[in-house]
């Protein structure tokens, strides 16, 4: 795996969110998914910036939907992981798994018992 494919923390969250949401991943749902699960405020701007960056790396791609069938309905940009993206996510998760082996993290980060 090339160096460029290491995922930053927030990138990992976004990709995990995409993996969870499957076909319904667009700005609103992604933001809400991360905010809901991570329990911290997430800005829509950060989500799009990260998606853009992941798009540049070829890890996610998108399709735009037809406008919603209501008056003034807008079209949405639906994102999903590419094959490379799934691969990168898998690798990152595996790395995380390896890194945390033998550690007890239950007490939360920064307070590891010796």
């Amino acid at each position, binding site marked *: 795996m*090339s160096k*460029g*494919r290491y995922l930053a923390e927030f990138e990992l969250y976004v990709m995990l969110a995409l993996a969870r949401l499957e076909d319904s991943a*667009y*700005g*609103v749902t992604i*933001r*809400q998914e991360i905010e809901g699960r991570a329990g911290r*405020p997430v*800005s*829509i*701007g*950060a989500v*799009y*910036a*990260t998606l*853009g*960056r992941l*798009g*540049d*790396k*070829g890890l996610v791609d998108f399709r*735009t939907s037809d406008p919603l069938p209501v008056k003034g309905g*807008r*079209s*949405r*940009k639906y994102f999903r992981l590419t094959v490379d993206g799934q691969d990168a996510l898998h690798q990152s998760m595996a790395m995380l798994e390896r890194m945390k082996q033998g550690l007890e993290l239950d007490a939360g980060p920064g307070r590891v018992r010796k």
Partner: protein
Amino acid sequence: MTGPPRFASWLLSRVLDPSDRRYVLSDLVEEYSEIFLARGRRVARRWYRAQVFRSLLPSLRRRLAIARNGRNRSVRPTKRGMLMDTLTQDIRFALRSFKRSPSFTVIVVITLALGMGANTIAFSLVNSVLLNPVTLSGGDRIVQLWRDLEVPGHMVSTTPTRAMIDEWRRHDRVFEVIGEYEEAELLYIGGDEPLGLSCTYMSPEMLALLEVRPSVGRTFTAEDRVDGEDRVVLLTEAFWRRQFGADPGIVGQTIVLDSLPHFVLGVVPLDSADLFERVFSGDEPQDLWALMQTGDVAHGFGDNPFAVGVLRPGLDLDAANEELKRIQSGLIESGIVEEDWTASASTPQELVSQEMRTGLWVLFATVAFVLLIACANIANMLLARSVVRAREFAVRAALGAGWLRVARQLLTESLMLAVTSATIGSLVALWSLQALGGFYEGGLARLRGVELDPLAVFYTFGLVILVGLAFTAVATLPIRSGNLAQCATQGRDQVSIGGRRFLPRQALISFEVALALLLFLGAGLVVNSYLRLQLVNTGLDPDGLISVQLTLPEESYADEAARLAFFDDVSSRMRQLSAVESVAVGRGVPPRLSALFGTVQVEGREAPEDNPALVMTGNYVTPGYFSTIGTAVFDGRTFAEEDSVSGKTSVVVNESFARKFFPGEEAVGRRIMLESAIASSSTESWRTIVGVADDVKAFSLSDDQGRLQLYFPFEDRDPTYGVLIVRGVGDPSALIPLLKEQVWAIDPTLPVERVDDVRQLYAGTLAQQRFNVMLLTGFALLALVLALVGVYGVISLMVSRRTREIGVRVALGAERSDILRMVAGSGLRSISIGLIAGLGLALGLTRYLESLLFEVEPTDPLTYGAAVLLMAIVGVVACYLPSRRATTIDPMEALRHD
């Protein structure tokens, strides 16, 4: 429900990447609405602001990252990558738009290709003939060295003496190296016919200076230069192929030249031979290069060779001339050279004749004007098209394209058109340059070896960029002048209102007409002058006249008597033939007479203190010469037996000579003495003028050099060579085999090669003029056609745009003539302005043609009148045709017209 905070939305939209903008905002609105419905306006608005606030930084960072690295799928996107991406998009788009209007594309490409091809040709010619004739590493330091004598009116440059060359070699501060060469004709027997080979004797320095790399064998070096009988030669590749079928086995063998064995060292490649001939030997093709032996020099051969020097780096021509002057005064002081002689250096470029030089610059300017006209036409079409495309641009603008983005699209289109045209143009140029080679055969030797210059391709490429930029500027005019969105709403109607919108196009019409008139006038003057040249009286009757130079080798013709006997014999043999009307022998034949530089003394007159040396023409002729060439002898008589017996006592002068020296007096019977300015050792005596002959054009139809002509009895000079002149009945070419037969009946080893038709010799002296006429009229016609198309195009466009207006006018009672006046009037106005401007331009510029013109003033009223009239007619026709269509418009149809 109230919408989200406006300022926040606006702020965020400024910061967001445009491709995400509307999705981000719509996502925000979606959530905002949910919160609004569930928790009220205040909470929703606070939420919205917080979202925007926290989005600003990441969005801005993202935006900057895109600006820095581009938006690319690669891990580290590059700026170039992004550019390429939009470039391919632009190119694809351009291709689509060309496909939509194929006729537009084809016309533009053909017009431009013609213009660019012409410019590439002109550039190649100018560059290889005028700017850069010597393509050698030290090329700009190579100079030709001369010994000069000032005669009234001009300098006569001749080759230097050995003493001068030796002295120059000693002063090696000036020259790195000095090479010498001398031309000679060598007799070669061994092929099917005896051949007189053109040979250049060279010092080894010449080969080094010319950077010769032999294609077979080796070149000669200083070591080969020994005083002995071993003579070494190089064959030029052309001769090697022609005579020896490119057999490499000839190298290392011995061939007999002038009855002496010569050892063949190697073969000079085409390009080296060509370079030498082009630059140094007046374009005469050479068969052999022989080593100038030190023994030759000792025996008197090579006393006055041509000299070529390579200046030391840092020295220029002026410095060299300064130094030569200094050396020369030293030589004069020590009595080694005569007092009147000076020395000078010139660049090889200066060997190009003034007519050729002017001709090429005029051609260069002409094609530039043709390209300008072509560009004006295309600019017109582009203007028309971009008005039509205004709607398209407006749509693109609505989708977020700024005018710069649209301009870039147009630039891509323009450059694509220009590149395609340049490619086609270069091919046209390549092909035409090959065709121009035909002029080499026709006597314009300079053009030999001119080929498509790599530099010319750069030049064309430079033009491409300029033209592309200019077109973009034109095509974006309508977009810049207004607001893009305005274009969308106004569309076609806007242009159908008045004439004002056509203003730039009317200016283009005037511009085209002015340039076309200028070119037409220039061509007219040159044609006029060429026609006059055709009517020039040569002073002889060239029809049915042929001539051949016969050179008698010393080995087989031991003394003067033997040589005179030969010419006598061959003349009387030829005279026997029924196809022959008369025969004469001379030292030359017009227009190939030799110049004489010397002073004239008249018996019984005090010789002026400072008797000036004059440029004259001299010929040694047999008694039948005047009647054979058809030149009248007005006063006195032609030569007779007694003149040849008495020896150096009689002379025939021409009318100009008689008028100059004996104005209002009888010339016949007077005695004159000539003193050569060059060969001071010649022994001349008083000669009696026995006759006065008509003036003959001695060198060419166009110049008056050699106006003073002198004729001496043939026997007065040892005829080591002579020109046999034969007037036949019927086709002159039929005489050639007969002539060979008679010569070979006497001496089968004598070369009879170049048999010239005198009429063609004269025609050959007009090669430069013919070249000018052909190219200038060709380009002037092209310019005329382009201007015609341009005017027609603009007027037709105007008619079709104003159809509805015309319909309304007709419906309201306008007469046909009113419509005609309205439509044609504006066109004719532009044409008139163009004609006036063109006349002004021509009055200012045609004076540069002066040196190309013969008996025609650069402001010749007849030519001007004819050209203006013709342009006016063409202009009226181009206006009338589309205007007539306007008068046939049916008002009902027109009002339905969209």
